[in-house]
């Protein structure tokens, strides 16, 4: 859902996962559902591609997985942020904001450049 079709960068997925987990531990299904609803279903394509991203982030040491039990008493693999993950979350959020602000500022500007006829 996040990679090829939507044209979103891999880093964006990771940022969104970090954001989701900043509320607390969650399983893959929960993460996917939350991202979709939080982005008003804009990113709603192929949920499966979330999982390689989760494993990659585990390997980088940003998140850790542990098997737990859901409210409906079903076994699920819960991910939570590590200390490094929290740091990444803070850094990447502010980085994204600066980036988005800059792009927004550029495309919202009304004053034309000097060479514009």
């Amino acid at each position: 859902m996040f990679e090829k079709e939507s044209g979103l960068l891999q880093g964006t997925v990771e940022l969104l996962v970090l954001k989701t987990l900043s509320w607390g531990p969650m399983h893959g299904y929960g993460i996917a559902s939350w991202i979709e609803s939080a982005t008003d279903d804009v990113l709603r394509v192929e949920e499966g591609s979330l999982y390689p991203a989760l494993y990659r982030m585990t390997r980088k040491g940003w998140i850790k997985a542990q098997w737990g039990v859901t409210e409906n008493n079903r076994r699920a693999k819960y991910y939570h942020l590590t200390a490094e993950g929290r740091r990444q979350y803070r850094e990447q959020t502010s980085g994204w904001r600066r980036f988005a602000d800059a792009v927004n500022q550029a495309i919202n500007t009304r004053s034309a450049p000097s060479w514009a006829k």
Partner: protein
Amino acid sequence: MSDHRQDRDYRFVPPKPETEVDDELRFHVEERIRSYVASGMSADAARRAALERFGDIAAVREACARMLTEDRKAEARRDWFDDLRQDVKFAMRSAARAPLFSLLAIVTLALGIGANAAVFGVFKSVLLDALPYTQSRQLMRIYSPFRDGTQPKGSLSAGTVSDIRERQHAFSSLGAFLSPRDGVYLNGDTPQMIKAMFVEPQLFRTLGVTPARGGGFRDEDALHDTTTVVMLSHDAWQRLFAGNPSAVGTTVRLNGIPRTIVGVLPRGFVPPEGTADFYQPLGVKLFMTNPVTIRGSHNFGFVGRLKPGVSEEAANRELQGIGAELERLYAKDNLGIGLSAVSLRESMVGDTRTPLLALLASAALVLLITCANLAGAMLSRTISRKKEFAVRVALGAGRGRLLRQLLTESVMLAIAGGAAGLAIAIGALALLRGVTIAAIPSYATLSLDTGAILVTFALTLATGLAFGAGPAISVGRSDPQRTLRDETRGTSESVRSRRMRGLLVAGQMALCVSLLAGAGLLLRSLWAMTSAPIGFEPNGLLTVTLQPPGGKYGTLVARNRLFDDVLQKVRALPGVADAAVVSQLPTTMSNSNGLFIQDAPWGPNEPVPFISTGAGSEDYFRTLRIPLKQGRIFSTTDGPDAPPVIVINEAMARRYWPKGNAVGAHIHIGPPNPTAPWITVIGIVGNVRNDPTRLAPEPTMYLPFRQSSFGNVLAIRTSGDPIALTSAVRRAIATIDPMIPLYKVSTMNDVIGDSFVMRRLPVVLITSFGGLALLLVSVGVYAMFANMAAAREREFGVRVALGSPRGAIARLVLGQGGIWMAAGLVIGAGGVVGAARLLRSQLFGVPQFDPIAIGAALAILLLCAAIALLVPVRRATRVDPITVLR
């Protein structure tokens, strides 16, 4: 790092990566289906929609499983190293808690491993390292052995060398040489003794050696009677020319004749026999012109390179055929002489193989005993640490983990011991390089290279595992619950570990008795050699060799006059009782000549005997105190123009004139020259053992110095310390001719000692290994009895309380330990037989199973064991029932 350790300690086994990924993905899809069903979809439609929304489930599954597998592997590796680090830290702490034990263990291991590393270093450089030639496995040394076995490594005559060349097909290339000889090199104005060796230019080609500098010999260099070119060994180039590259091409004076240096041999090159500083080109053809020497003088060494695909056996078969043919064609000179080839390594290794194998075996025995001993000590430590292990098992440490911990402890002790042992070995080899230059083949470097260090390291690890394994297994088997519950038994010993300790002691006894028996046999043999009468009085004899330059003293008359002057001056010195000149001192005689007796010619099937031959001045026998048995010795009138005479020893007289009519007999000595006048035997002197390692003296004959052309060694009988006279002798000779170099100044006892070095060194080493083993075994026996007595202390207390006499308790303890010791000795009998077999070729004057040597070995071992067990057994009988039972 901290949190993964936490996870691991739950010790739950994670499911396979594929299963885990499947579980996770299934959960996702099922949750999605549930949400669709909840919003009103049919089950089927919900499943289809969920799967579609998920995407390529197979690809996701594969990618995730792959990553998880890799992560798990990486984690396992990290864990392994973490565990190791933990084990090592723990091992160091536990070693530090018992510093005396650790220190003793490390010292014992250092000695054991050091001995092995040093001996292996020698063994490897002598027997395993490549010879300094190209593809040396193809190289063979050709000998001319006497069929009666007296001279297995006989040299070849010039005729035989060229006949082999013409007839053979097995070798692609052959090169002849003459043994290195002393020569005089004029270094500025100072004459200096050097070793010079004649080699055919083809010899270097055969060996596959090209000069490191200069062009080397050309074939035509060997065509002249007087050679004008020389080559230098790398060592001589460094020593005499300070490694100056411009030495090549310069002219030097060697033996009084100017010669041009045409090359320097590569570093590490040694000739196939002896060592040499200078090489001179040899032309065998030149020797073919003299009808006497062509086949009568057997003094050429010969080396050949086998053609590819030709086996040693095939070459030997061919040589045997050629030898038989030459024997037929030239029966007069070659009768009783064959031809054979042995690998060049075999010929250069010489007699060192068996002593080295014996040394290696005894060093290995010492290390095995060390292992058994430390295993016993570790066992005791493990027993006293039983509680500690039980607690760790109870807290969740796996058996495997505990085992690994114990092995880590023993391996770490071994590594510490191995490192110290390596240092010992390096030191020992450095020492050895200084001592035994003569005893060890010249190509052997006697150093520990990477290979030897790796072998030592492997040996160290194996040692650590070996002595740690027994105790580790015994811990693995113990029951933590019982150990923890049964507090009073905290230090007692289980039947199983007692049996293991008994076995270890039995093994040590077996190994030790074999080693001691071997050492005993060698010691007895050495004693037999050194204590048997040598035939002359070596004490108080000073020996000096002079090298009168050939040009000035070329004639017999000139040499006689020179040595008359020298002896007169030397005799006049205070402290000198007698002085004589001789060709070669006893124990170093190497010349031998054929013997032909007038009126008793050798039959067609009788090979000409070769007799050890020397030349001495008329006062030689008096100076050395060799008694005259019959007839007379030389006098000053037996000069160059007088009828030729000879003195023989008793062994020769008895062998060739069994009727006792030797004095007055007429002989010729080879090479046979029918025109020469007969030599008259004028006297018989006492036997002198020329090879002190052989008890039977060999037949020897002495020519008068005045009539023979060789002899340049002074033997000086002194009244005080012989060496103190050295400078006086030097000055006296310098007043006659300052250009005569003096060398090999030493006492006769040192000369004899040098011929024993090869015999003595391995005996000394093996004996000290035996002493070390004896000490270790005593400690092992002590520990066995001490533990046994401690374990049964309460029982003995009860017995004493019930009225058992102390003697009965002593019998009980002795019986229990004695069985193991006896078992060890029974097993050891096999080891003794093995040791005697291995050493058979090294024994002289003692039977292979010498009861004195073997009995003494057994007695010493039992005595030491008895002393070792005395204290613990006494302690067992002194048990106070009140203190024990309270």
